[in-house]
Structure formats: structure tokens, C-alpha cells
């Protein structure tokens, strides 16, 4: 009797399973929808913002530019006017106001370049970085200090005073060489010292005259 009942229930099992599947699938359709949070989570964004790993120093950037590292892409987030006045070599101009334009998305949302964002200081670049980071774009960096820092360290490096450590002098030499690469001329070094003609005293070669040896007595 019990066996019969079990068999009756078990004979029903495929229909029951099919019913469960349909109910579950139907449940997905009927569930109230909610707008999903796009991009990365706020906690993740916060930890990214706190971390200073995004900053690239001007010295590093100068090194990259001089070595013509092809994996780096410079993006100037200032407005067009400032970009035309002065910018770093081979930079792309994406004004902050147009950051989310579709035309520029290919520059920012990619996996093949390390992007360095910069502005006059690093605040606009940071804002651009946060917006892009929120959209989960990868490989984005910010030039620490921006163009101002660039000008102060690379283009016009401060001369170290004598009481500074040797590293400061090395850094200065590097920066000076870098600034020469970027077209700064150090006129004082090109001043050619006036050529002083050395008066070469005439050498008097004294030739010893052979004295005629007096005939000596001999054989």
C-alpha cells in the first residue's frame, strides 16, 4: 500500500520538476526590476581614490618621453586654448567638459596603453581620473602636479645648493638634460670661451757645429 503511494508520487516527479522550473523562470519575469549600479562599487572607488598609485611623477614622465615608450598615451584634459598654447609632446586633448563624449571613449576605455592624464595642476586630471575610474576604465594615471610641476621641475629645474646631497645634483643633471631634450637652451653653457692664441715661442734649434777635431797625432 505504502509502496503504491510512493510510486504514485514518484510517477509525478518529472511533471513536478518541470513545474518548478517554469515557476522559477516565471519568477524572474515577474520580479520587480531595479536599476543596477553601473561601474565599480563605491567602496572600491574610495579605496582607489585614497591610493596614490595613480600618480606619475614628472621625472618618470620625462624619462618615458625621452625613451619614447610607445605604451604611454598622454591626455591633456585642459581646454583647447591652453592645449594649443602649450602642451606636452604627442598629447591628445580631451577637455574635461567633453570627457564622456563617445569620440573620446576609445582613448580612455582601452587595455593597450597606460594613459597619463594631466592638467595645469593635478586637480582637473584627478577629477577626470575619478570619473573614468568610476566607469571601470583601466590603466589610468595622473601626472602629479600637472603642467606647473612639469615646468618647475623639468623645464626650469631649481639648481641645488652646495649643502644638498649628491642625489640632488644627480637629479638636477637629469632634469637639465631632460629640459635640453625638450628644447631648453642653456645659453651660458654655449658661450664659447674666447680663444686665446697662445704665442708659441719659436724654438731655437741649436745645432751644434761639429768642431773640427784637431788632428791629433796618430799612426
Amino acid at each position: 500500500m505504502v509502496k503504491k503511494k510512493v510510486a504514485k508520487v514518484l510517477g509525478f516527479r518529472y511533471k513536478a520538476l518541470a513545474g518548478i522550473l517554469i515557476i522559477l523562470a516565471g519568477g524572474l519575469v515577474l520580479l520587480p526590476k531595479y536599476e543596477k549600479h553601473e561601474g565599480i562599487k563605491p567602496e572600491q572607488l574610495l579605496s582607489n581614490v585614497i591610493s596614490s598609485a595613480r600618480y606619475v611623477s614628472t621625472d618618470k614622465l620625462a624619462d618615458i618621453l625621452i625613451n619614447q615608450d610607445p605604451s604611454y598615451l598622454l591626455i591633456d584634459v585642459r581646454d583647447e586654448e591652453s592645449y594649443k598654447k602649450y602642451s606636452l609632446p604627442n598629447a591628445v586633448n580631451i577637455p574635461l567638459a567633453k570627457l564622456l563624449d563617445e569620440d573620446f571613449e576609445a582613448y580612455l576605455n582601452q587595455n593597450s596603453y597606460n594613459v597619463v592624464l594631466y592638467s595645469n595642476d593635478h586637480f582637473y586630471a584627478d577629477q577626470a581620473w575619478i570619473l573614468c575610474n568610476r566607469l571601470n576604465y583601466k590603466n589610468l594615471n595622473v601626472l602629479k602636479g600637472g603642467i606647473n610641476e612639469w615646468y618647475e621641475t623639468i623645464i626650469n629645474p631649481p639648481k641645488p645648493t652646495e649643502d644638498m646631497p649628491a642625489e640632488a645634483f644627480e637629479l638636477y643633471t637629469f632634469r637639465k638634460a631632460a629640459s635640453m631634450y625638450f628644447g631648453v637652451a642653456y645659453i651660458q653653457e654655449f658661450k664659447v670661451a674666447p680663444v686665446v692664441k697662445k704665442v708659441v715661442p719659436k724654438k731655437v734649434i741649436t745645432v751644434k757645429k761639429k768642431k773640427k777635431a784637431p788632428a791629433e797625432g796618430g799612426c
Partner: protein
Amino acid sequence: MGPLIPNGIIPHEWDSIIAILIGIVFGFVLEASGFSSSRKLAGLFYGYDFAVLKVFFTAAIVSLIGMYYMDYLGYVDITQMYVHPTYLWGAIIGGIIMGVGFVAGGFCPGTSLCAVAIGKIDAIVYVIGIMIGVFIFSELYFLFEPIYEGFFMGNITLIDSLGVNPYWFIFIFTLIAILSFVISDIIRKRNKKIFY
């Protein structure tokens, strides 16, 4: 939270170990449910056994529904899931070849290895055939390359290419699956029972 590996909850170094474990379980289940018999698989074609259809369709639906519930509840981000890239003509031609091989040999590549493990001679021949096929393909790769790498459509899913609401798609897909189970049962009952 999930998927676990892309989000770093399980480190990438575990990939191969997890793959081996899943492989062992998968092979065991295949063998235990009788899929290492070529008759079982050929039954799908001749209409006396629809276990393969039912198993794979059910697996697809269960994981599909489960994934979307987990996505809804926030345990898994469905957009981070790996989607296999589509090479349209490569997939069509490869599918036809595999289908013919499936019916002719009675194995799919996975079940053939299961059957080799339990010592079936036809499966051994089948696997040797696979290896010869692989050899021919790699030797003549330059001929096949335009098809193999062409017609690339990106990592798309049916939901992307049809542009439909995923939840409705799942519901309709489930209905189709259950309908196919019912129809396959009717066909099986009409056929003469074959013992194997």
C-alpha cells in the same frame, strides 16, 4: 561578490586545480549516468533515448535560472561572466562536422574520453580519429585560417544579438525546453523499446 575568480576571491593560481577537480567530477557523472556508451548517445538520433538532450538542456536551464537569480540578489555580476567569442561560420561548419561525428561515432569528445577510461575499444578508435583530425587541421591550418579567425562577432550572447529582455528570454527558453522534453517522450514511446 562573484564571480569568484575574476574578483580575486579565489586566486588565479587555483585555476588548474579547480579545473582538474571539476573534470574528475564531470567525468564521473558522465560515466555513472551511462554516457560512456555510444548507444546512449546515438539513441538521440535514432529516437529511442533522449537522455542526452534532457541532461544538457536541463543543465543549461538550471544554471541559467540560477545565475540570473544570483545576479538579481547581487551575489554574481552577470556582466563579468566570460562569454565565449563567436566566429559565425567557424561555429556553423564545426558544428556540422561535430554533429556528423557524433552520430557516426556515438561519442562526443568528452564522453569518448570517459569511454576510453573504462576500456571501450570503439572509443579508443574514436579518440585516435580525433587526434588524426587535429593533426590534419593543424597541418592545413593556413587553409582553414580565414574561416577559423574570420566572421568574428565578438563575445555576444543570444540576448545581445536578439536584443530581448533576458528574463523573458529565459522564461520562453524554459518553456521550449520543457516542450522538447514532452515531445521527445512522445517520440520515445512510439518507438520500439530497445534494450542495450
